[in-house]
């Protein structure tokens, strides 16, 4: 039924290209990831090696997923926020906040594990709700609305821990970030679960449609009976919860809270992941898969830096270059120029 007749209204040179991009938005992020992996394999043939060590699958690919888990979780939430036409700068701070709360709760043996996990997530959800309400009710631009929590969130986290980095020894909670299940790190299952939930919710219900319509044209969506405000508020809550989960993973992973460093700059990585993944900052169409690839791309980059022995502070440079490159490739203007260069000779 979806016959792709040549478009009579738009046989412009770029249409095919654009159609192709629409058809397969994952192209560029995947190319980037592949290239990076290839580069590594060339330098260290063992890069992709996998082996089984005391019952665990072991190797860099596993690490990429395990270490990338935080990034992916954030990217999921960020994708939705960006799809709604917004942005969430507070995820890093929310990570720290949830992490701090979790660590403090984990120290108290009398609390059930459920509480240690759920309460921080609740806190994160409230943080997200706060952002959402600032955006939808008071009508503050998302950047600023979330900037508020970004600046003060870490402060609150430090307030919770009194500026300390409380360490804990709560096997159940530690499992979250370090445990293994069927030979794979538990975090991978966590991410998989989060992804499937998000995927199902967005594609098997109309939520995805409502989200994309809201991001693409809020007024029109409202005039068509979509409760745009609710949609927008919801995405910030989701983003908050994702950040909270990431915070739990990070905290459990090092068996201590670190209000200052947990999630430092992660909000930017998350945004990069989403944009590199092919979701436009202008909102509307989004691709979760793309964001995941984007997150993995950035994690691979980090790993590569470790391998090459590049001091961490220099790592941002290639990051910036890759992101700009991908964005330029996705910018119509840039492609217009490129195509222009290619076409000029042919033009009669």
């Amino acid at each position, binding site marked *: 039924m979806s016959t792709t007749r040549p478009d009579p209204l738009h046989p412009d040179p770029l249409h095919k290209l654009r159609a192709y991009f629409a058809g397969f938005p994952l192209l560029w992020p995947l190319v980037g990831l592949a290239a990076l992996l290839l580069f590594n394999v060339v330098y260290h043939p063992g890069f992709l090696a996998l082996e089984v060590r005391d019952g665990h699958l072991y190797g860099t690919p596993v690490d990429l997923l395990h270490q990338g888990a935080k990034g992916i979780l954030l990217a999921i939430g960020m994708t939705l926020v960006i799809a709604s036409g917004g942005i969430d700068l507070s995820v890093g701070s929310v990570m720290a906040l949830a992490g701090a709360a979790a660590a403090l709760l984990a120290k108290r043996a009398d609390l059930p594990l459920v509480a240690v996990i759920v309460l921080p997530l609740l806190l994160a959800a409230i943080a997200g709700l706060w952002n959402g309400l600032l955006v939808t009710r008071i009508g503050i631009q998302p950047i600023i609305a979330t900037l508020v929590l970004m600046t003060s969130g870490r402060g609150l986290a430090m307030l919770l821990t009194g500026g300390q980095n409380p360490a804990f020894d709560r096997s159940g909670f530690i499992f979250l970030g370090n445990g293994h299940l069927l030979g794979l790190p538990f975090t991978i299952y966590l991410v998989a679960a989060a992804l499937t939930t998000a995927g199902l919710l967005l594609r098997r219900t*109309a939520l995805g449609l409502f989200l994309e319509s809201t991001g693409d*044209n809020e007024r029109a969506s409202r005039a068509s009976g979509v409760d745009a405000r609710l949609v927008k508020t919801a995405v910030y809550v989701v983003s908050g919860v994702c950040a909270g989960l990431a915070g739990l993973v990070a905290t459990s992973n090092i068996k201590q809270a670190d209000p200052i460093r947990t999630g430092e700059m992660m909000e930017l990585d998350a945004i990069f992941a989403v944009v590199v993944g092919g979701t436009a900052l202008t909102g509307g169409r989004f691709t979760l898969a793309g964001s995941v690839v984007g997150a993995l791309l950035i994690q691979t980059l980090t790993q590569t830096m470790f391998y090459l022995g590049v001091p961490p502070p220099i790592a941002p440079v290639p990051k910036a270059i890759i992101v700009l490159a991908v964005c330029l490739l996705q910018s119509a203007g840039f492609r217009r120029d490129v195509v222009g260069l290619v076409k000029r000779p042919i033009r009669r």
Partner: protein
Amino acid sequence: MTRVLLELRDIVKTFGSVKALDRASLTLRAGEIHALMGENGAGKSTLIKVLTGVHAPDAGTIVLDGKPIAPRSPREAEQAGISTVYQEVNLIPTLSIADNLLLGRQPTRLGWIRRRELVRRAEAAVARLGLEIDVTRAVGACPLAIQQMVAIARALDIRARVLVLDEPTSSLDEREVASLFELLRRLRAEGLAIVLVTHFLDQVYAVSDRITVLRNGAFVGEHETSELPRRRLIEAMLGRDFGDEADARPAAAAAATGKRLLEARGIGRRGLLSPIDLALSEGEIVGLAGLLGAGRTETARLLFGLEAADSGAITIGGQAAVLRSPRDAMGKGLAFCSEDRRAEGILPHLSVRENLILAMQAGRGPWRLLPRREQDALVDHYIRALGIKAPSPEAPIHTLSGGNQQKVLLARALATQPKILLLDEPTRGIDVGAKLEIERLVRSLRERGMSVLFISSDLDELVRTCGRVAVLRDRRKVGELAGDDVRPDKILSVIAHEHDAA
């Protein structure tokens, strides 16, 4: 006759695949008011934009005072003496009137703006239009009419020889229009050549000396206004003798038969619409006539809950209804097509399918997603029923022509199976063919017992389509015509004058 001042000859301009201008021409003489006429999409605005350097023409020549010119930016055009007032007032709301008037031309000494001189010149400029306003006020804080005047004042402030007015009256009321025309006549006397682009025939005949008609981007003809009867003008614009269909009313004329579906008593909102009564019956098409800004759109928006009414009551199917949001309205069986397709209609980057099912899905709620097969079937049905031309249901809607976008929006509304359909300018800015198709469709809806509120600026269209026409002026209802009274001249007279309001 006075000498030719400006001549655009055989201008061609294409956007991607669309040929917006195809050998369009326009000849201007000093000291005349020249109406540039044509249906929407005839290329009027494009021609203006070429003249003022916004677009560069692909072919054709522009000759000013015998010298060929090729303005590459509005600024260059202004320097050549061609200045423009655009349809949507183009001023910076956050800047003061003075700043707007002299933006980029501020009097400076050694690079520093001379504040006092600036204000002085600004006051002089507005005084020339007989305006008494504080030029240090922010434009955004002024009423539209004033903004319009400021825009004109700005256009004149540079020793303009050609003044282009693109739909200048669309947001003005009678008095303001009158004073604007007064001003234009004065400027004509000063030897200015004025191009007037407007939809309102009566205004054309009121003020213009000469008319040039464009159709589908091409030059159709130039006439002395006094020697061109309205009917001939309209035919020239539409490019066909629509007599038969134009006057075909009988079918639609049939007055209300079925029972009352919707009844609004004294609904209004301060600053938006003074309380009006309106009733819709089963199988009835009621027109809303009036100039832009007369309150037609506002009426529809109040009925659909896009604006909350602060007075009056609405009963639907007999029982009272509170409409706080479109969701409420849709729940009560209403559907709405906005006049502003871009801002409030399409989701540009989503597919035809998604655009089409959105409202219906919103009605079903998020959890009961319509299965894809049914979606496709539905979309297929409407594509055929409305003759929507789209490369594929999955094509982003922004790749469709205006008319087809409009049809998709209609389909979106229809897909919710409404009892009451509110259509705001459903045929604006689309080609004549699509226009007539949509009118036909609307008429067919009434046969199915749906009741339609039909808003249009095109009187003939109202006449062709509606059984009853309510007329609005200055945000209040000034009359209602039914049966044989539904004639363009009658409607016009009600719009125009106080007394013979029905």
